[in-house]
């Protein structure tokens, strides 16, 4: 029975798709049978980030409308056997998604997979609400910036009222805070919200901190989720995040300026 995890944020462009792809990849690399679903109907992007855009034949809406079955629509990742992608439709409008349709798909996927990762569209409308509705857990992606933090708070409100778990009075959706595009130097300079402030304001537990990183753009250029780039800070930070999702305790990294000071260099070592 799979765990359903929604990656959501309210605000657009904060790193949901990057994170959904990286987390799904990380979970699969750890041996979990994982599927990642693009809920951004009309604006699909997950296929590009996962590098399978040329293999899309059927999509989520085709399955919901009975034009294809789930097996035909699922794309097997070319690097990891136990990772699958269910792309969103590029042409249909958002109304093509129905709650019953989504439920049917999730119930079917639940049987076969260990993790179902739902990449939510931005906003708090129908698409975002459908992406979170059946979730067991939520990764709330937040940038250290006022509008992103405020929108995350709105999303946290929806998670505790507009989800299946909330409506039927089951144990609530487990919420995780994922701070992305964190820039330690700007935080130290006093011009970027620091991670404790963000945590204090949103008051949900931190699952990970992803630094602002050139590796993310390199990864999306190539269609290889950044988790595969284990030399990069962002890639390592996503691996840490995945370990915590799996219940392991991992110390936080990449939240301080890399201390390659003169002193550190003189005495050797000094690696962060």
């Amino acid at each position, binding site marked *: 029975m799979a765990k359903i995890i929604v990656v959501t944020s309210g605000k657009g462009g904060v790193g949901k798709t990057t994170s959904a792809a990286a987390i799904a990849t990380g979970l699969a690399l750890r041996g979990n049978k994982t599927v990642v679903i693009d809920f951004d109907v009309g604006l699909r992007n997950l296929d590009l980030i996962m590098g399978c855009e040329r293999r899309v034949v059927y999509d989520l809406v085709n399955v919901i409308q009975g034009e294809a079955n789930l097996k035909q629509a699922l794309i097997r990742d070319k690097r990891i056997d136990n990772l699958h992608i269910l792309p969103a439709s590029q042409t249909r409008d958002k109304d093509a998604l129905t709650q019953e349709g989504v439920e049917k798909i999730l119930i079917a996927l639940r049987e076969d997979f260990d993790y179902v990762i739902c990449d939510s569209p931005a906003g708090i409308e129908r698409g975002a609400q459908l992406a979170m509705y059946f979730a067991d857990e939520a990764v709330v992606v937040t940038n250290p910036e*006022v509008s992103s933090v*405020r929108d995350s708070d709105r999303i946290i409100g929806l998670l505790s009222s507009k989800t299946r778990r909330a409506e039927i009075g089951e144990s609530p959706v487990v919420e995780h805070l994922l701070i992305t595009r964190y820039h330690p130097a700007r935080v130290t300079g*006093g*011009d970027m*919200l620091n991670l404790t402030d963000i945590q204090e304001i949103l008051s949900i537990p931190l699952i990970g901190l992803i630094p602002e990183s050139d590796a993310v753009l390199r990864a999306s250029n190539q269609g290889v989720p950044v988790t595969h780039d284990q030399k990069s800070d962002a890639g390592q930070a996503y691996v840490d995040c995945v370990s915590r999702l799996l219940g392991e305790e991992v110390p936080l990294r990449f939240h301080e300026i890399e201390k390659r000071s003169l002193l550190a260099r003189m005495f050797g070592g000094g690696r962060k």
Partner: protein
Amino acid sequence: MKLLDFLKRERKKTANVAKERLQIIVAHQRSQRDQPDYMPMLERELLEVIRKYVQVDQDAINISLDREDDCSVLELNVTLPRPGEKN
């Protein structure tokens, strides 16, 4: 002491301003979040009752629920048209 205060104030960075603003806005959002589901319906029905006696607009009525220590206070504000004025 004064000098220290001065130095501290100098160091008040934009991130701190952001934090203070967010604390206020988030507190406000949360107070709305906790409003019971029946509030919009209650507001509509109250408006209907008032309209039996006075013609008022939709936006002439303002309703809010404030939580005190051991009870909640329902605050209802209705702006009535000036007497004699036909609406």
